[in-house]
């Protein structure tokens, strides 16, 4: 079995999760506390990947990344980057595609914190960043964990977007889910089985971890 699709998958999922953690916290915080009129619009945009067929997202991103389009041209002329059929392109697409899986748990975690915690910190003359890092995030650890794991698992399970943006270039964009599809098409059921089993075990493992940790089972075990 060729391990590169699996390694590529894990690499893509890890980078996507890392990027999403950083950008989702401010978005989730804004969504949790803001009372702006256009908030529903932003909420809708963040949630779109949940209902949009991945191929639609992939199709538009492909058009945007293509050297014939304006954004694609700008990227290529200014930075020398071509995103279509490349690994960075996959990362950007995955970040958009998995955005709600990170934003939603963090948002609901922050919303469930009593407002007085934030206010108490404000009265103590603490900055937003200190309040976020010392009070808000440590008190929503289960939500953060849920966001991290779901994003990771969801990126591992991507197919449509990846196929549209990345195609199936070995070592570059041929992630495990695409490799399975290719192997089945080539009637290599044995290899397809191997990849599938690894993904199945991975999916089961990470979800089990979420429920064990958030249910407090691990803590009980250690104590």
């Amino acid at each position, binding site marked *: 079995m060729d391990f590169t699709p699996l390694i590529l998958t894990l690499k893509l999922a890890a980078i996507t999760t890392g990027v999403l953690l950083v950008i989702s916290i401010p978005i989730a915080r804004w969504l949790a506390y803001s009372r702006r009129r256009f908030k529903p619009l932003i909420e809708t945009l963040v949630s779109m990947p949940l209902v949009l067929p991945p191929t639609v997202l992939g199709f538009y991103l492909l058009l945007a990344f293509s050297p014939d389009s304006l954004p694609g041209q700008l990227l290529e002329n200014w930075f020398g980057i071509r995103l279509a059929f490349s690994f960075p392109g996959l990362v950007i697409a995955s970040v958009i595609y998995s955005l709600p899986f990170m934003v939603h748990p963090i948002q609901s975690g922050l919303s469930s914190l009593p407002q007085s915690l934030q206010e108490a910190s*404000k009265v103590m003359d603490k900055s937003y960043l200190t309040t976020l890092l010392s009070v808000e995030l440590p008190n929503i650890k289960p939500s953060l964990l849920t966001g991290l794991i779901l994003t990771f698992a969801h990126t591992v399970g991507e197919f449509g977007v990846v196929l549209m943006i990345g195609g199936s270039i070995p070592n570059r964009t041929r992630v495990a889910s695409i490799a399975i599809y290719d192997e089945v098409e080539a009637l290599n059921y044995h290899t397809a089985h191997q990849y599938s089993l690894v993904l199945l075990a991975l999916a089961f493992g990470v979800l089990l971890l979420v429920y064990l940790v958030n249910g407090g089972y691990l803590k009980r075990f250690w104590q």
Partner: protein
Amino acid sequence: MIEIKISKLLQGAEGTFSLDIDECIPPGQIITLYGSSGAGKTSLLRIIAGLINPDIGHIKVNEQTWFDKTQGINLKPGKRSIGMVFQDYALFPNMTVRKNLIYACDTSRDPELVDRLIEVVELKQLENRRPNTLSGGQQQRVALARALAGRPKLLLLDEPLSALDAEMRKKLQDYILAVHRQFDLTTILVSHDAGEIFKLSDRVIHLEDGKVVNNNTAVEMFSQRHLSGKFQFIGEVLEIATEDVVSVIAVLIDNHLVKIIVDEQTAAGLSLGDRVLVASKAFNPVIKKI
């Protein structure tokens, strides 16, 4: 001297009403904001803290302007030198008792303050516990100590004792009195409890529907000046029983149930749950050492 002259439209249970305050609070006193729920007490406290902004007006504390709409001044809550005890205590669940205090304290400027505060509110044994493992009274003490950790000049207490039983209340009232004196504070608290107000406050500001209806000492406010009884207690009417020509009223004063005989006319003016002042001239009290 705290000078508050503000106005703000508030959303009440029966539509919007305007909170209009024009009061001066002398330093070093304990002031109680009293009034029925929805009268604007907590909102006033939060306006003083800077957590909500008034629509118009100004707040000046010792010649320093905290808020002035016309001049566009609005000092951040953290710059107002206040300590606040929230109704739900707002203790940080991820930190131990000691860490809650350290977070609020400028330990480089005041390294011994945390230890002193832990001592004052008698929390030494609990300092490494998380807030959610503590009882209500213990949490309240942590909140009180934490509010003092920033060396405030003004202490704001939002119904701090409402969730506690009578005995714990008494104890915590003593703590509040003790820290008020020790830390040289001006204290503003929101309270419904007449007994508590008697014990703690120098003055009472009575708010109804956003307006100050009375600003007086506790004794004068609740006794309405024309009684000269030496014994005065505030209680709640639990039962009214009419017997022949008199009525017997059962009144709960603190934890004590007292039966009081009144004429029918007085009884007719009372209903169950009324707050009443029970006063008696002390002609022949029996005093016994216990």
